């Protein structure tokens, strides 16, 4: 039997299994990733309540930290999936981005008033939502890899 002799149904099943391997690789030990990601998000949001230029530095440091985390995780799992490239999971990433922007603006607003301490609960909210968001993204992505559409 040659390697080309597989029925279309068998080929589709092989594709489904191979794609699922990516979902499994990405979600392997992902709790550590979720925890670090959420911590960075929380610090980024809370940092916006700090005076200039500390809040700017907090944003820049968070961007660098997110980039390093993504790189480290790709090296660890052997696969890199951009948060916004999967067709369905990207909407979770866009939603998380919108939530972070709102929380950062709120934190920034509180920082300009005499309630700068509210940046801390804003950061905690960001931490919790980021954790829930990354887990949701992973679930949607894994479902996406199991589906051929």
């Amino acid at each position: 039997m040659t390697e080309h002799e597989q029925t279309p149904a068998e080929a589709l099943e092989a594709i489904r299994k191979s794609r699922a391997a990516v979902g499994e690789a990405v979600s392997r030990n992902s709790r550590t990733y979720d925890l670090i990601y959420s911590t960075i998000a929380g610090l980024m949001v809370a940092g916006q309540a700090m005076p200039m230029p500390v809040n700017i530095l907090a944003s820049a440091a968070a961007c660098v930290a997110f980039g390093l985390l993504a790189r480290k995780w790709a090296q660890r799992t052997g696969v890199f999936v951009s948060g916004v490239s999967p067709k369905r999971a990207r909407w979770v990433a866009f939603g998380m981005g919108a939530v972070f922007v709102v929380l950062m603006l709120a934190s920034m607003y509180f920082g300009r008033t005499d309630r700068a301490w509210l940046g801390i609960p804003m950061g905690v909210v960001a931490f919790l939502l980021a954790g829930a968001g990354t887990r949701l993204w992973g679930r949607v992505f894994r479902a996406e890899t199991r589906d051929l559409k």
Partner: protein
Amino acid sequence: MKAPVFDPVIHAPGRLQICAILSEATDAEFAMVRDAIAVSDSVMSKHVKQLEDAGYVAVSKAAAAGRQRTWLKLTPAGRAAFASHVAELTRLAGVAG
């Protein structure tokens, strides 16, 4: 959905699996893909070379933790060809079923 087109370069089981993995990832490491499809380094290299020659896969090397790692990525042409091939397989499976 892409127009269904059967692609003999992609259809061979190993290359089909490689393309399936790369279609879900932005980049994937050679070793991860090799382990996922359970082939030897040499077989994997041959498949990657054929996909690279067809313009479907881009290969890059990056040093990490003191060792060289090879990363694979589907090119836009590879993504389009794979999507068309999957559409054709789906059509054929529908005809057969």
